[in-house]
């Protein structure tokens, strides 16, 4: 039993080392990885800097990473809270009310509480999903027409204070 404990401890340390290297090389403040039943989350203490909200991609043995001020989705994030709108159900994600209609929201658009952000279709019923926060749409994480599962991140919003 002693040997077995040490092996799993060694495995954990190896994973942590890998993660630390990854964080350094990519300039990440937070990283979570899941590997064979072991889930490790590392977060840098950044005094005076509001923590990023991270919603991890669970169940898949891949690193899920965020970086502060990540420019990829084209929105200027100067740090501060970011809220992720997650899917409340299983279904197909649609950005617009109809195939030829304009999407409900675009990146960079201002969002109000109660504003419809997308449609989730399940069993031939169209469910309008409303935002519970007001702010700026920072990222749209799913393509229109793609299937989504319960809890899947859909939108990243920078809330208004």
């Amino acid at each position, binding site marked *: 039993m002693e040997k077995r404990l040490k092996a799993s401890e060694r495995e954990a340390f190896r994973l942590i080392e890998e993660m630390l290297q990854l964080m350094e090389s990519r300039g990440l403040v937070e990283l979570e990885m899941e590997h064979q039943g*072991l*889930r490790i989350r590392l977060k840098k203490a950044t005094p005076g800097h509001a923590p990023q909200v991270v919603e991890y991609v669970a*169940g898949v043995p891949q690193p899920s990473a965020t970086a502060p001020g990540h420019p990829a989705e084209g929105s200027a994030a100067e740090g501060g809270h970011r809220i992720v709108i997650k899917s409340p*159900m*299983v279904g*197909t994600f649609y950005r617009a009310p109809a195939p030829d209609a304009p999407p409900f929201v675009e990146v960079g658009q201002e969002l109000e509480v109660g504003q419809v952000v997308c449609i989730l279709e*399940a069993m031939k019923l169209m469910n309008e999903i409303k935002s519970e926060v007001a702010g700026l749409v920072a990222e749209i994480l799913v393509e229109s027409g793609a*299937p989504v599962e*319960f*809890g899947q991140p859909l939108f990243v919003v920078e809330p208004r204070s």
Partner: protein
Amino acid sequence: MFSKILIANRGEIAVRVIRACKEMGIRTVAVYSEADRASLHVRLADEAICVGGPKPEQSYLNIPAIISAAEITDVEGIHPGYGFLSQNAHFAEICASCNITFIGPPAQAIQLMGDKLAAKDLMRKAGIPIIPGSMAAVRNKEDALKTARRIQYPVIVKAAAGGGGRGMRVCHNDVRLISALMTCQAEAEASFGSRDVFVEKYLEEPRHIEFQILADSLGHTVHLGERDCTIQRRHQKLVEESPSPAVDGKLRRKMGELAIRAAKAAGYVSAGTVEFLLSRDGTFYFIEMNTRIQVEHPVTEMVTGLDLVKEQIRVAAGEPLGYKQDDIALEGWAIECRINAEDPSNGFSPCPGRITDYQPPGGRGVRVDSYVFAGYDVPPFYDSLLAKLISIGTTREEAIRIMQRALDEFLLEPIRTTIPLHKQIFSDPTFWRGQLATNYIDRKLDAGEGE
């Protein structure tokens, strides 16, 4: 044949179904709750969809979520496993209306057998012996008392919409009967959504003998012999074996024929189980029919050589059975122990938590159906079954010895399980002699032996 199936379940049965699908070249979709992200069935499936929160109502019982998952993954069939939605006629109907094959019996058969009183009535008309008792829901106290006096105490009060050993109370006199009525009605409403209860004769120390049946959609029905599930704790099965030490060839033929008749009367397709109680004097009575694959199906598989889950899938795909009753033979002896995360020394209180060490037994004559592994956190939201340990021998004695060896090898730490209790059962001369009744465990525990 299906190219893709969704498994609407979790734990060991989900793993079981995924394994059968893999061997048949069928792609698999797992659904899981947030509490089951790290679960084995999620890892083994080709695709996995999170369907909701940890509580069963949020996830595994969430019909819209499951159907939606089936639609977005474009599956052709859904296997419901056991428990959860497996005996939900409404779910079976929805699958049909969404053009997804429900891998199980027709919704009508589920509905019919789910109503214990309707099932009894159907069996009576089919000439199958049923337990004396009320043929309709108890209307009032006087009604119940009259029935009890007619059939004579002891009697049992049961929920009409119930099953699985829940919502039942044994009564030995009028006073007990009246209080049992109220308790059972309340329990029945809470668990099954219906206050209907009925009164039946309670057989003292019967054996629980159930017959596995298999039927295709072309009218062919066979039985695959019996399972003896007499060892139960509070009506929950702990140990099952096939064949039964109390059933000889003649009785098997007689009961088997009636089991087939019962299945045909219900218009049954797929795998199902007809349950009987066998009393000491050799008389037997139909109690209920389970319209799903059962936990203890492996013992039947070991003695018949059939893969029951594959047969379910084949039948659901429209294939004929391809064999007749004469082709079925029982060979050898199989026994199964349910390894539950429960503490026998503490009233069988459930023990969820992290498994740090897991080393299942192996070798000739041992089969383990499980979904746990070292490092796995057993969630508190679901049933406590961790593993099924099955032994197969040429004789009953050999099966027992193999089981004893396997129980000794089984390493599952640190959570408390029923392994110690099983070790006791398998070293008990009464068990070796095969002379048991359904109160065996409860009596054993009362005598202070359940450490």
